[in-house]
């Protein structure tokens, strides 16, 4: 049943939001449906609930995390449901009248309101801390959307932001608190919490503080109360619902639920009482200063929330019972008062007491409602508000001295601002020179007035005959404090201290009302004196601006947008992080300084080339020095017994040089001596750090080999290469067979690089190459004629590498790179035109074809249930030719070969043109210094 109700809210809410254009203000009529259904459902089960048989429903969500929805409607929950849905229903009816001239977003409000009501309902029926938190946060979000619904207005947006951030912060703190407490108690279920073993420990203390922070923010307790008056930018029906009757009660509700279990834990009671008292007094004080009736009510609400906090949080059942009555009373009178203010605003266009000068005759019901509800707020008999306050004073007269004082002080202020409200409403605070707007204001329709009348009737009837709520209140109290025996709720509790105090309070309040001008002047003087104390608003927005500033500062510092600096940080970290632990293992200094004499000249060339490349200022010279390093490395590979690597290095060096030339011919000759991003000492330090780190790691890593007993995995590769891999060149067998998967990925990288290079270089002109006449590219007969012989010769060599590679140095890569050199020769001889002529297929086709061939070869064995890349081989005797061996490694390698050729062709497609595609003037000479 509970879930169905929640789902109903959800569905109706979403539908209303979705259809809000069509429904407009009638969306509120739709929104009333779930509230009504809820009330009816509650009514049917109320008897059992009040008899102590709660409705319980349980749904597991993430059981491992203890996340589940335990929904439980006991008497206290039923009280809250009554508030939420009852006032919700009335507010919806009221809103239909209120929004007589709906704006485009009005209908959406109804949907959001329904969603909010659903969330609030969820909060009050949750018997599980985490489930309650889920709904709690949903109320935060929906109220954000409700407050900011009039999104054109910056004030609305700001208020919404403030509300969501403050309550959101509280929510997160609360989450931590809930988890801490839940973990300590071993359960998240509220009904089990009270019976669990008493909690203690510093973690629980922290947890309790966190939970209270959450509750305080939601219930607008000092110092988190600033968002609530701000939220008054929302339309009045919304304010009446959210900020008077329901959402702000969530914190109170939570404290009421947890107080039985947690009130004895260290900071709970002092915090609850201190904060509640401060809130009650400060809120009352501020309410007394307002000219805007709605703001007056808002601050009044803050004050009442402080009152409630003290009552429900104190952890004693009699005080809590007073709290339950006050919850009910406050819901009734505050909603009614907001409705009244809304009516005034709706009919006159103002809520400012200085512009109200009394209303005409038709307004009497509104005035009566306003005055009676205000009287209930002030705690005048025989209204429900009076009963609540009496009960509270009575309960506090025991040992709650502090609370008593706070209640008295706060209540005096309450009487005063209630009086101010009444005076304002009746036009007694109107200023003569202000526009008179109220006297001729149109009389509000019954649709607008009726809901507040209903509430006020309840206030009066329940005040006169509290017996109608007595059972409810007592059952609620028992449901919170199982072993308690709450007294009956009575209008006349006898002549006791509380009554005397009440009288004094009313008298003192009346004096303040009577001398309201003097009070205002005194308040003004006081505020001038303490102007240095930041207001809630100022504190909040100040904090926000500090946040924004520090965010900008931090970001501007670390995120400076400069690649050199990023690299500096990365390289420094990469060098220093592993260096520390590595150095500690450097105790075993290796014995061997060098093992092969030829290393010395090679090292000398490499070192000279590297240092030269690092310091030389000409771009192309740096490329040449890198080439020198590459050649020496190739020599080194030969020395180490790695001919395949040497071949690859030599071939790549040739191609890389050609590519460098292709690009560098456009770029400025020298590196500009511009502003250095990283200063020389730092660059030097980082470079040295990287060098040292590599040095140490290299030595330490190879020294560690002694400690590993297993053989290198390549040992088996050497053994199985010929018998199982069908190839004598182990490197090639590794590349196409043992680790053919790497090669598959590698050719893919080449394919992508090729596609990317062309896409980039031709970014602005589509994919079609531009024919150009090579004005600057002299045709050299000697070279052309030579290349007629050399081009096919190099291609033949490349094919040799391809076919011999499985047994001799070579392979698809070396072959492809060699063919790439042949293509480069065409460029040298005749420019890019000649390159485009060099093969009968388009680069795309070669590239894609090669990839299809390789990957297809890899995939085929899967079809017959074997492994990816599992090669098969055949050996046949052919006449004349002798034994012919073939393995499927060959087509794989042919694919590799084609891909490399495709890459080179594509590179020339990309930047082989003599005149850059969109170089504007087209003259390259102009770019040259």
């Amino acid at each position: 049943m509970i879930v169905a109700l929640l789902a109903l809210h959800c569905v109706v809410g979403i539908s209303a939001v979705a259809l809000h254009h069509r429904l407009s203000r009638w969306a509120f009529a739709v929104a009333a449906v779930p509230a009504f259904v809820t009330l009816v459902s509650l009514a049917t089960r109320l008897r059992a609930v009040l008899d102590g048989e709660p409705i319980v429903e349980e749904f597991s969500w993430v059981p491992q995390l203890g996340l589940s929805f335990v929904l439980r409607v006991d008497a206290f929950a039923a009280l809250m449901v009554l508030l939420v849905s009852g006032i919700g229903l009335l507010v919806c009816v009221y809103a239909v009248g209120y929004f007589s001239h709906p704006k485009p977003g009005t209908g959406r409000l109804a949907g959001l309101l329904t969603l909010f009501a659903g969330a609030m309902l969820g909060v009050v029926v949750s018997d599980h801390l985490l489930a309650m938190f889920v709904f709690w946060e949903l109320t935060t979000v929906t109220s954000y959307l409700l407050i900011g619904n009039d999104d054109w207005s910056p004030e609305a947006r700001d208020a919404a932001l403030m509300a969501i951030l403050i309550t959101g912060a509280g929510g997160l703190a609360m989450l931590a608190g809930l988890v801490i407490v839940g973990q300590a108690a071993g359960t998240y279920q509220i009904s089990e919490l009270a019976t669990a073993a008493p909690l203690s420990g510093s973690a629980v203390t922290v947890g309790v503080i966190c939970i209270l922070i959450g509750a305080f923010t939601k219930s607008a307790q000092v110092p988190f109360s600033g968002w609530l008056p701000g939220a008054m930018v929302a339309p009045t029906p919304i304010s009446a619902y959210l900020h008077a009757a329901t959402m702000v009660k969530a914190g109170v509700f939570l404290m009421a639920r947890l107080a039985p279990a947690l009130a004895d834990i260290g900071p709970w009671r002092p915090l609850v009482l201190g904060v509640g008292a401060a809130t009650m007094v400060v809120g009352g004080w501020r309410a007394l200063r307002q000219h805007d009736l709605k703001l007056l009510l808002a601050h009044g609400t803050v004050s009442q929330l402080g009152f409630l906090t003290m009552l429900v949080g104190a952890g004693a059942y009699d005080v809590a019972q007073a709290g339950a009555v006050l919850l009910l009373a406050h819901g009734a009178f505050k909603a009614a008062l907001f409705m009244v203010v809304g009516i005034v605003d709706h009919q006159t266009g103002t809520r400012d007491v200085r512009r109200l000068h009394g209303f005409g005759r038709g307004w009497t019901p509104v005035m009566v409602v306003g005055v009676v509800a205000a009287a209930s707020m002030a705690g005048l008999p025989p209204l429900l508000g009076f009963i609540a306050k009496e009960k509270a004073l009575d309960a506090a007269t025991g040992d709650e001295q502090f609370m008593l004082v706070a209640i008295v002080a706060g209540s005096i202020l309450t009487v005063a601002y209630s009086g101010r409200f009444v005076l304002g409403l009746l036009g007694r605070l109107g200023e003569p020179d202000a526009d008179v707007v109220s006297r001729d204001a149109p009389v509000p329709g019954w649709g607008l007035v009726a809901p507040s009348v209903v509430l006020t009737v309840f206030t009066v009837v329940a005040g006169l005959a509290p017996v109608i709520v007595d059972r409810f209140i007592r059952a609620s109290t028992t449901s919170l404090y199982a072993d308690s025996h709450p007294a009956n709720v009575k209008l006349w509790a006898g002549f006791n201290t509380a009554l005397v105090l009440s009288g004094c309070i009313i008298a003192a309040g009346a004096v303040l009302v009577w001398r309201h001008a003097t009070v205002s002047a005194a308040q003004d003087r006081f505020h001038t004196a303490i102007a240095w104390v930041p207001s809630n608003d100022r504190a909040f927005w100040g904090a926000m601006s500090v946040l924004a500033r520090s965010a900008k500062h931090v970001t501007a510092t670390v995120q400076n947008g400069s690649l050199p600096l990023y690299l500096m940080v990365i390289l420094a970290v990469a060098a220093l992080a592993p260096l520390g632990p590595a150095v500690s293992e450097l105790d075993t200094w290796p014995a061997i300084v060098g093992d092969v004499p030829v290393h010395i000249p090679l090292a000398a060339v490499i070192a000279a080339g590297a240092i030269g490349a690092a310091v030389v200022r000409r771009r192309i010279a740096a490329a040449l020095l890198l080439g020198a390093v590459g050649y020496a490395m190739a020599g080194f590979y030969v020395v180490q017994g790695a001919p395949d690597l040497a071949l690859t290095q030599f071939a790549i060096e040739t191609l890389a040089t050609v590519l460098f030339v292709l690009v560098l011919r456009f770029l400025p000759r020298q590196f500009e001596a511009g502003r250095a991003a990283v200063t020389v000492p730092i660059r030097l330090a980082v470079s040295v750090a990287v060098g040292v780190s590599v040095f140490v790691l290299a030595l330490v890593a190879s020294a560690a080999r002694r400690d590993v007993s297993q053989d290198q995995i390549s040992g088996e590769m050497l053994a199985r290469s010929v018998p199982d891999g069908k190839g004598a060149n182990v490197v090639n067998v590794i590349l196409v067979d043992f680790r053919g998967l790497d090669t598959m990925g590698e050719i893919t990288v080449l394919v992508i690089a090729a596609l990317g290079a062309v896409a980039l270089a031709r970014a602005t002109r589509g994919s079609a190459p531009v024919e150009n006449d090579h004005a600057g590219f002299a045709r050299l007969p000697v070279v052309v004629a030579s290349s007629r012989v050399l081009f096919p010769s190099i291609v033949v060599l490349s094919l040799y590498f391809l076919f011999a590679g499985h047994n001799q140095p070579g392979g698809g890569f070396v072959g492809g790179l060699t063919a790439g050199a042949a293509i480069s020769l065409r460029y040298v001889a005749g420019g890019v035109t000649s390159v485009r002529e060099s093969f009968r297929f388009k680069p795309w086709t070669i590239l894609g074809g090669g990839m299809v061939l390789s990957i297809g070869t890899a995939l085929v064995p899967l079809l017959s249930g074997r492994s990816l890349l599992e090669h098969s081989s055949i050996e046949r005797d052919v006449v004349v030719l002798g034994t012919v061996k073939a393995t499927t490694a060959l087509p794989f390698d042919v694919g590799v070969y084609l891909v490399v050729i495709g890459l080179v062709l594509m590179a020339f497609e990309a930047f082989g043109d003599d005149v850059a595609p969109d170089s504007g003037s087209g003259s390259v000479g102009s770019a040259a210094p």
Partner: protein
Amino acid sequence: MTSLRISGIVVWLTALWVMLWRSLSVANVVSGVLVAFAVLAFARLPRMRTTERDDAILISPLAMTWLAVFVLYKLVEANAVLAWEIVTPHNRIRTGVIALPLRTESETAMMVVANLITLTPGTVTIESVGSPAVLYVHVLHLHDLERVRTDLLQIEALSVRAFGSRAARRQLQERIEP
């Protein structure tokens, strides 16, 4: 003098293939021919400016030997000169650029001549203009201009005799003895 009329490029590529495999077997020759034809089929050779059938070259083994000996001699001689130049402090360098009007129109022949000139130390071909080509040669030791020119033209004669096409031989003949 026997001359063989064959497609020079196919022979060369096949020979290259067989040499790369380092063994003269039927399989290698057959596959070499196949590879050669495949390469010529899939790859397109650079276009020559003239319309001559370049592959129709005539190989004369005897003349080729002469050419080889001559080139090797020049190679060693010029290297010796250069070595002397390098190791002695004395500076005999006198640079110059001379024109070398060839007598054959074949671009292949021109290419061979130009490359042989470059190969011999002390001389480098830096430009080839027109047809029949005029080669411009940078000379390191230009002391006797005409002697250098004669030496270099000797290379042309030798190489055309070694593997010039019929037309090239005719042109050479015509222009040496008009």
